[in-house]
């Protein structure tokens, strides 16, 4: 596998440890996919309205909307999925009416384990299989902003768990077809997002193992919020060996900037803290390389008070460059 193979499958399920920027990475993936000419659908499954906030649109619901040329979005919830499922398979309007706001949803979300996830994934499969009138698939790329790594295995295992509980009947065949989709390397890639920090790296390595044990195919690793290295080797050496606060003051003074010892000390410490962050990043990069056989795509640190469209675009630029350029790193 190669980093350029990012869009090799039509379904990308994006996950990562909480706080690593999984949703923004998913949004950037969808945007990069759209730019490459793919009719793209971005799917939210946890009903948090993260995406509508990121893209500053009206709140999303169960009906997909085109909010950018070629880019569609929807927010799946289990209740709407259940109603659609009943309508589709039974044409049962009467049942749907009974279901909405009734105990059946309690049943789906509380009593029957995993059914909720099966319903969510069921809707994803409907999008993945949907065809246009001319017979081609309706979407060339579907990006799912999935639950975080702490819950992803349970989420993906839900269809299989259901087949273990339910021996016969339409639920079983539905669940089986979902498991087939998720485990097919030609149809679905799991997309892990991480940071170059100790705990996210550890959790990413563990999750990649658990996902592979499950039979899933893990796509190129997205490394988010990578700090640029500001000092080359000479600069680093100067900072650590030669630029004690008095030296720093002298250099600044010669350039016309008078600072006191406290300021020089604070400035130097800022530089040293940056070096130690960079060192940690390097160490984590090595750790990933040693424990995870995956191509990686690094995304730059982009700070914004509200992580909106322009910032996602910066990330999409990087992804686009990595996937449309020549193959290889």
């Amino acid at each position: 596998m190669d980093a350029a193979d990012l869009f090799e499958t039509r379904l990308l399920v994006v996950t990562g440890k909480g706080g690593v920027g999984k949703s923004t990475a998913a949004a950037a993936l969808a945007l990069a996919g759209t730019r490459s000419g793919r009719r793209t659908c971005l799917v939210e499954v946890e009903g948090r309205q993260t995406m509508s906030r990121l893209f500053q649109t009206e709140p999303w619901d169960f009906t997909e909307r085109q909010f950018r040329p070629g880019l569609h979005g929807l927010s799946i919830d289990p209740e709407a999925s259940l109603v659609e499922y009943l309508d589709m398979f039974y044409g049962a309007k009467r049942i749907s009416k009974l279901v909405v706001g009734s105990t059946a949803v309690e049943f789906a979300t509380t009593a029957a384990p995993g059914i909720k996830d099966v319903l969510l994934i069921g809707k994803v499969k409907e999008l993945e299989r949907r065809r246009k009138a001319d017979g081609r698939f309706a979407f060339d790329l579907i990006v799912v902003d999935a639950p975080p790594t702490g819950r992803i295995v349970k989420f993906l295992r839900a269809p299989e768990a259901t087949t273990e509980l339910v021996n016969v009947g339409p639920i079983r065949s539905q669940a089986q077809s979902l498991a087939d989709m998720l485990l097919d390397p030609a149809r679905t890639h799991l997309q892990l997002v991480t940071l170059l920090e100790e705990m996210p790296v550890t959790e990413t390595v563990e999750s990649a193992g658990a996902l592979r044990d499950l039979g899933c195919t893990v796509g190129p690793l997205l490394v988010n919020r990578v700090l640029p290295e500001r000092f080359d080797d000479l600069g680093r050496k100067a900072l650590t060996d030669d630029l004690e606060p008095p030296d720093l003051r002298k250099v600044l003074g010669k350039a016309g900037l008078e600072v006191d010892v406290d300021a020089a000390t604070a400035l130097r410490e800022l530089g040293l803290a940056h070096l130690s962050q960079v060192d940690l990043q390097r160490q984590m990069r090595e750790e990933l390389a040693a424990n995870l056989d995956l191509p990686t795509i690094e995304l730059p640190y982009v700070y914004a008070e509200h992580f909106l469209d322009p910032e996602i675009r910066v990330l999409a630029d990087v992804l686009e460059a990595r996937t449309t350029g020549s193959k290889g790193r």
Partner: protein
Amino acid sequence: MSKKRSTDVLAAARTRGLKDTVATAHVIVCTGSGGVGKTTTAAALAIAAARLGRSTIVLTIDPARRLAQSLGLRSLDNTPRPVKGVEGLDAMMLDMKRTFDEVIDRNAADSQRAERIKDNRFYVQLSDSLAGTQEYMAMEKLHQLHTDGLYDCIVIDTPPTRNALDFLDAPKRMTDFLEGRFLRLFMAPGMVAGKLAGRAAGFGAGLFMKAASRITGAGVLGDLAEFFQSFEGMYDGFKTRAQAVYALLQSPESAFVVVASPETSALREARYFLQRLASEGMPTAGLVVNRVTTSAEDALGDHPPQELLAVATHLDEGDSEQRAVAELLRLAVDAGEAVNREQRTIASSLHGVDPRALIEVPLLSGDVTDVEGLERLARYLLTA
């Protein structure tokens, strides 16, 4: 609330730490969205309490085993384990399945019934995937630790829920579910015999059951009904304990510490949680914002960024040492901007709420992975 007053509230909150909380609270609940350093914060507070000579336990529910890492332990199971290097501190990781087993064993009418429940094919699935089970089990464990009375201080790290509020809602959801008409449907006689259609009378239940069994396949609902019925006699206990824990969390013996990072989404969640705690009458000890950017800007405050950048451009023409200094100046300017942005984000996200104590923990170089790092963090948390 006026902007001025809101700023004053935050300024006052910044002067308070969590020292009193770790010295006096019997239960400390750390909550917040995922990835903000909740587990690490819980561990640091627990160490601080233990250092004061209080017998302390820290309980984590996180399946990613982060606390284990923070404490340098390989794994934690459902038993309290002493933390190496900290006198009087135990750590424990909640094992969902085992806690559920223990609840069944303790509360079933007899061991035969307990075994019957644990043998049911729904049980294994249910015991770790039922919505809200993690939160509910955390409550059960908290109740047990509290009634056992072995610890002066119990610090708990809430599950990585989709929404931090789930933790507060778990007891109520459990009791709602137990009282719900859905469950009563299953408790109706006749269900176990597998004669689903038309038997459970009233409120369209027959139609619902018919539909449900068409979807799940025959037999499944019967098994599920048997499963729920085997719990009979235990429901009141579930309910009583859930209510007891809720009351404990509302009492002045408890303290909630909300944890966030300086990002908008995490702060927004923290804000909701602070408001919710206030409306539920639950005691808030403070808000911890982890990983706040620090800068040399204060020290360089006399010089505007434009001046620093002009000097940097000039130094770029020099030797490697001068170029390094130029880069340092740009680093300082960028860090200064980041600090300003973060402070604006914090102020605007918290507008109108009173976190009581507001502790901003600077981005420590490197992750906190050992007791020493936790002690360093604890010092920040206590002294504001």
